[in-house]
């Protein structure tokens, strides 16, 4: 399976991944723009408004009917943060012709719908339909506020927000309540006209269709796309380190406390940091899982994530309020163990096997590959799953220890109960 990447127009690229194993074709059209506070809400709202309808299918019922008739094809707006860019636009899937009665061709009509949604939205007096803008604005505001419903996600968001204050990486990918509440139909329309003309557009296809056919579908998607010159994409800025680690505490009426610990890594050996993090908290075989959960029974989950583009590591765990210090001490003790090289041989072999498994199996999922390749584009990289895997497997114990020594505590976040002891 070899990936092809090619330009299709000014600042428009296609990433093509042939695969015969899937029952479906995967087609995405995502704009990539630098993540900025004001623009984040506009782009998120715009994606939702565009999904409401186009000139040919002016409301959601007509649009869904068209998709249903393509044997349940699916189009949804997707907004993501990758590196310090915002990815926004559409992801579409359809059952491959090979599995349909009469082998009906559904990829072309699906591509046409994507092109219509992006280039021919429903307008009223030259503006995006006010009804759609206002109701999607309400929905987006609801979505922004609903982050409190998922306490684990809330804690992760709050940790990054506090840790990366003043950096784009700390921003929400769907915008802030106050900014979104103020968006008018006129403002969104102006933004639409400039954004679709100036933003980088990335098209991605994975499925059975030949390259030539896919290029044809994509050319139709962008047939009416205005191009005015690149707004460019942002390369990740380095995280500014702080003198003393900070401690942030929020209170809510919850049954379980959520602990988030953020570390900065002062090392350019990212492959080593990646392997170090895998051993530290990246798997159910990691030091955090085996000690914070299995040995001390403090939690159900304790894991860490490596934010490669920013060189940050974040740990997340759900614990009883009174176990805050105990859990934090154990997390730091496990990092200390990594610094000393205090691990058994199988921990490293296990981590290497998990890394190999994770990268090799990526080719078995069209959406994981899409997320990987779009992440590469958004962080200015051109790695492949294979190249990253090979580099990680070559990392030595010395480099792992050095990576752990380059890792230092930056921010501790704790979401605690309302009546919890303050010294918890």
């Amino acid at each position: 399976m070899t990936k092809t990447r090619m330009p299709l127009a000014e600042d428009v690229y296609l990433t093509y991944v042939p695969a015969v194993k899937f029952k479906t074709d995967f087609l995405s059209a995502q704009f990539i723009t630098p993540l900025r506070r004001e623009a984040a809400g506009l782009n998120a709202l715009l994606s939702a408004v565009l999904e409401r309808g186009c000139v040919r299918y002016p409301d959601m019922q007509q649009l869904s009917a068209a998709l249903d008739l393509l044997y349940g094809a699916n189009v949804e707006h997707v907004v993501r943060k990758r590196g310090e860019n915002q990815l926004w636009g559409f992801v579409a899937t359809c059952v491959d012709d090979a599995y349909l009665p009469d082998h009906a061709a559904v990829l072309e009509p699906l591509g046409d719908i994507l092109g219509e949604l992006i280039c021919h939205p429903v307008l009223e007096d030259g503006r995006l339909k006010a009804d759609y803008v206002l109701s999607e604005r309400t929905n987006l505001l609801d979505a922004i506020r609903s982050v409190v419903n998922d306490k684990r996600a809330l804690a992760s968001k709050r940790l990054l927000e506090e840790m990366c204050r003043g950096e784009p990486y700390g921003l929400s990918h769907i915008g802030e309540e106050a900014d979104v509440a103020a968006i008018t139909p006129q403002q969104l329309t102006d933004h639409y006209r400039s954004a679709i003309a100036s933003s980088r557009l990335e098209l991605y296809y994975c499925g059975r269709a030949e390259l030539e056919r896919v290029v044809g579908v994509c050319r139709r998607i962008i047939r009416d796309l205005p191009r005015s010159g690149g707004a460019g994409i942002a390369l990740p800025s380095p995280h500014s380190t702080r003198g003393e680690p900070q401690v942030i505490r929020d209170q809510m009426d919850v049954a379980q406390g959520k602990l988030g610990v953020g570390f900065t890594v002062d090392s350019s050996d990212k492959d080593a940091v990646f392997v170090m993090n895998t051993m530290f908290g990246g798997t159910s075989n990691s030091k955090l899982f085996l000690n914070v959960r299995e040995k001390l029974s403090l939690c159900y989950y304790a894991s860490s994530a490596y934010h490669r583009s920013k060189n940050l590591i974040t740990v997340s765990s759900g614990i009883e309020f009174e176990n805050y210090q105990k859990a934090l001490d154990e997390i730091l003790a496990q990092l200390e163990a990594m610094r000393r090289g205090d691990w058994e041989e199988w921990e490293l072999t296990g981590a290497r096997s998990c890394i190999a498994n994770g990268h090799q199996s990526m080719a078995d999922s069209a959406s994981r590959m899409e997320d990987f390749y779009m992440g590469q584009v958004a962080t200015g990289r051109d790695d492949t799953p294979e190249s990253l895997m090979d580099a990680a497997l070559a990392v030595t114990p010395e480099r792992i220890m050095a990576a752990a020594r380059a890792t230092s505590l930056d921010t501790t976040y704790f979401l605690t109960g309302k009546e919890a002891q303050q010294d918890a």
Partner: protein
Amino acid sequence: MREHTYPQLGETVWEETLPNGLALRVVSKPHYTKACAFFVTRYGGMDLRFQRGGRWLDTPAGIAHYLEHKMFDTKDGNALQELAKNGAEPNAFTSNAITAYYFYSTEHFYDNLKILLQFVSIPYFTQESVEKEQGIIGQEIRMVEDTPDWQVYQQLMECLYEKSPARVSVAGTVESIRAITAETLYDCHNAFYTPSNMVLVVVGSVDPARVAAIARAVLPESGGPEIPRDYGEEESPAPAKGEAVQEMEVSMPQFLAGYKCPTPPEGAEQLRLSMIGDMACDILFGDSSPLYRRLYEEGLINGSFGGNFDILPGAAYLYVGGDANDPHAVHRSITAEAQRLGREGIDEGFYQQIRRAAYGQMIRSLNSFENIAIAQAEGVFHHYDYYAFPEVFASITKADIETFLRENITEERTALSLILPKV
């Protein structure tokens, strides 16, 4: 092993039932790098009361899930680590009806399969290690208690059912799990983890004969007796309670409406019923339904709105919900629209459109190894061939859906669960 091909689906399945009663399914997936194995027992959160040696046993809520956690303990340590050392991604889950242990791997597949079959069939825990797990599972329960999606569902089940164990949370409560001992866990393992109560499903590009050989070599030679289970007396069509409300730290009200359906049949009829239920959902409140459009445009619902038809041991229900500022209005509209469709009939063009989409949806689900494995296991437990779904689907008529809506989506059968923001 016998080979079955399904040309329309592009799928091949190898199947065999071993002398010990274990049902074996190998779903061939050429071109894939990963392979997975699901080892599933027909034993879930609802199997609280059952017969052993002629005696009825009552066990604490949450015991099947507790046992799932403890099965990973082995004589030499922990099976999670054994599998992870080989690069496998192991996991397990317990639902109302089943417990499934599985792994995905790209390397050492047969070694991993051996480990999976061994640790699930050989319990190894002590009173001490069982007690230690209280802390971990206690935190898992605390975590879901803070999850509004879980609370709204749990509260609905308690409204809908009076006696059925469907109303009991799969993980139990912090209190109920305190009664669990090593001895009860061993009893439950002996009863339910017998080859004749289990299915092994492997999905991937693997050698079926080698899978069968490993299963024969590792698992016990004999199966086990049939286990009579008690899911409570026959429920009345009416819910135990019409409505329940709870306050939580949420940003806006969340609701889940449920409609209690009759006890589901076994065999291919069950598969047929589940497809009818799914299509009824699409037609009544799916993204392309007139009701969805109206409620969305009136601002009564948002993208979180949706639902499904679900079959449990001895019980079936349809649920629908999401975030809404006026849940009662949405609830009334759903019941009214179902009755209107039952009375006036579904538009023929719309029905054909939904049929197409539903067929595509079933094909699409064959991308997921997990969906395939669970569907195959369910098929074995309930005596149907899941991959025969295109024929079963072809037999469904518009009148089937209309009857389903008219009879089940009624005021008499419904309950409403609400989560409101704390003031």
